[in-house]
């Protein structure tokens, strides 16, 4: 099925981008979690432009990489901050 045959919803679709009409750049390999063209040197490449039926769907996809990672949070919290050390030392000597 080509894009010409694809039936879009009557209400239209939403895409959030700096230039929503522009096709994404082809990197020659499928991006993570994408249905890009897996043929790097083909003469008939295709490029996938993702859309959603709602703006919420777009934002969930677009901002997925901003979800805080639990392991990263734990690692950051485990770092000893030298600014707080004098305060902690005072607390330990007074208790």
């Amino acid at each position, binding site marked *: 099925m080509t894009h010409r045959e694809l039936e879009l919803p009557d209400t239209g679709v939403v895409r959030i*981008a700096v230039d929503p009409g522009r096709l*994404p*750049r082809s*990197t020659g390999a499928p*991006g*993570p*979690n994408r249905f890009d063209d897996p043929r790097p040197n083909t003469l008939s490449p295709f490029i996938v432009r993702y859309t959603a039926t709602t703006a919420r769907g777009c934002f969930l996809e*677009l901002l*997925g*990489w*901003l*979800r*805080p*990672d639990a*392991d*990263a*949070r734990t*690692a*950051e919290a*485990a*770092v*000893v*901050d*030298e*600014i707080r050390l004098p305060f902690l030392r005072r607390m330990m000597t007074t208790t």
Partner: protein
Amino acid sequence: MEVQVSVSDEVVLEQAQKLSVQVSSEEQARYVVDAVGSRLAAAALGLRDTRTVNSWAHGGPIKGPLHEHRLQALFRVTYAVKERYGPAVAAAFLRGSNPALGNRAPMTVLANESPAAAEQATIAAVETLFAS
């Protein structure tokens, strides 16, 4: 009249790469600490406390080539995202569960992988972010 020039993604990525090899480790450490804070910078560098990275930012010696390379990789990633989207997004990017990295956070990859592999993977994640 003020003219706003939009710097393209390619230029930012190229600048980040060039500066990561041209700028001194001291300046790189200072840049990442100023951009994302010493705690996040230390965690991304696999350090246990902020004292070490703060010392590097003030010209203290970096023991071992791995630490130096890891700092270079962190600088490159932080610089690219900060210049494109600002410091808050750079910090969120480093902490975020990233689909391009198997849902690991860039800071976790930088801290735990070999610096060469981590640099390659995290820069690829930055490119994916810019392309989206």
